[in-house]
């Protein structure tokens, strides 16, 4: 059943991505309701999978890298569904679908055994782990908005914009959305650290240092942007690179985590 839920969500994201490619190829540039619906169904199927896994493991289903990536892609999809509706950022789904699909496919290729916890889970540890990944989800979507900014900014700078230019949101809106997503992610990550402290998790060692490094990088980006030292292009580039680094470090943190 879990496998079916996972495959169903992957197919939904694949459909969303494929449909986006098709309509972009046809020069229509307006993904519309079908893509949004496909993303919503994909997230729903993922929720189903995570519920089943959580019930089987008696804890938040992030016990291995495969589950972690699924949880992360679920967070990104969920935040997109909320942000995409609230800000009506056209074509954001077109940029989000490939990222979510990629994470999901990697997760499918990785081994994913059920680790049944025989101990009563510590709620602070569960909160710490879940909040970290939702924060990563917000950073992921900030990266998507940042990439959209770079594409649109490149179009504006080129002075010969391609047809996609007319369908991408204004750079100021993208910059604002990136900033808000970054704040959301940063606050969630901070809360995750606080819950980690409350869970008496170790505040030393490689896992803690890597996590702290990511927190510091995002704090520096936010500070530089707020103080006007980081203009639009450099801000978007920094946000995108920071998420890439966070993605690279994720398996390392996962391996070093006591939950694995």
């Amino acid at each position: 059943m879990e496998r079916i839920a996972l495959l169903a969500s992957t197919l939904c994201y694949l459909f969303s991505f494929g449909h986006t490619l098709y309509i972009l190829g046809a020069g229509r540039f307006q993904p519309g309701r079908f893509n949004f619906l496909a993303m919503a169904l994909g997230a729903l199927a993922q929720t189903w999978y995570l519920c089943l896994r959580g019930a089987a493991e008696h804890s938040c289903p992030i016990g291995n890298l495969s589950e972690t990536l699924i949880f992360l892609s679920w967070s990104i999809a969920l935040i997109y569904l909320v942000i995409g509706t609230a800000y009506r950022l056209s074509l954001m789904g077109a940029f989000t679908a490939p990222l979510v699909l990629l994470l999901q496919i990697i997760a499918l290729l990785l081994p994913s055994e059920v680790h049944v916890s025989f101990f009563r889970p510590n709620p602070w540890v569960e909160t710490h782990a879940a909040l970290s990944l939702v924060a990563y989800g917000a950073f992921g979507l900030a990266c998507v908005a940042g990439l959209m900014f770079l594409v649109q900014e490149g179009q504006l700078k080129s002075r010969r914009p391609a047809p996609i230019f007319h369908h991408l949101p204004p750079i100021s809106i993208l910059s604002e959305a990136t900033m808000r997503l970054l704040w959301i992610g940063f606050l969630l990550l901070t809360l995750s650290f606080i819950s980690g402290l409350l869970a008496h998790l170790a505040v030393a060692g490689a896992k803690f240092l890597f996590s702290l490094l990511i927190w510091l990088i995002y704090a520096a980006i936010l500070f530089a942007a707020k103080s006007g030292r980081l203009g639009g292009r450099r801000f978007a580039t920094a946000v995108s690179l920071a998420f890439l680094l966070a993605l690279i470090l994720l398996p390392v943190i996962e391996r070093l985590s006591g939950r694995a």
Partner: protein
Amino acid sequence: MNILCAGLNHRTAHLDVRERFAVRDSEMEDLLGRLRSIEGVSGAVMLSTCNRVELYASSLCPMRALEGFRTILSERAGVEAPLYHHATPQAVRHLFRVASGLDSMVIGETEILGQVKKAYSVAADAGTATRPLHKLFQHAFRVAKSVRTETQITSGPTSVGSVAVELAGKIFGSLEDRRVMILGAGEISERTARSLQSRGVRSVIVSNRTYERAAQLAAEIGGMALHFDHWEKSFADIDILISSTNAPHAILTPEKLAPLLKLRRGAPLFVIDLAVPRDADPAINEMEGVFLYDIDSLEQIAALSLDIRRQEVVRCESLIEQHVGGFISWMRSIHAPESHPFRRTA
């Protein structure tokens, strides 16, 4: 029953001629009454815009309707009316093309649809729109919507002003709180500023070497005049700079902008350089947050949009043809087939 379309437009008559035949709103009801009194005319809708004066009539005898229309127009203008005319199905096709913007001076412009709707509404209120005309115009509105949504005929801006507005929108989103500075009070600058104002810009500063000219333009467009020596002091507060001075060399250089940009704390700046020779060094486009467009790049974008629109015409014509077929089928279903061949003669 036949549908007759007769009139003159930007292709068949020069502006000097068109303006003599133009019908004012206040005259429309009276004219519609006179048109309906022509023998054989059961209904009439009159479309009068800056680019066309056209009659759409339902008539059993289109030739008489045409001659009656020609006489009325010629009497009003005092010269012979150089009319073209079409009967069913060409008249139907013509209205569908007009409403869809395919017959406009700028292909795909959407203003014409509002004008067609208004013409129909006036005729409906005056009681001169018969059932075939009601059906015809309702169908034309559907065709126009379909053409607009299913093709790219309205794609992209097609004038320097509208390109500037679209680019500003893609940089800033809403233009309501944006501040514009005009450097050099030229005619194109004024038009561009007005285009931006039409999209919500409220604050415009005008700076010119001759202060009186700046004050005059500022008064005309509801802006504020500024001495040319002081324009750099307001630089930190503006979002859009429209430049068209007569300076023989670039006045906006990376060296000059670099310290000014620091004051802007990363806020984007849209520079529209309409001057020839150019006021802005092209190198400023490489600076972060600066988006420079000169007159050539603005015109190229407008031309590109027009090219896209022209390429879409074939798809539009195909869509229209399907609708013409649908409308003719409807006409046949309510009337016995007409046996009066009516050919285009002009």
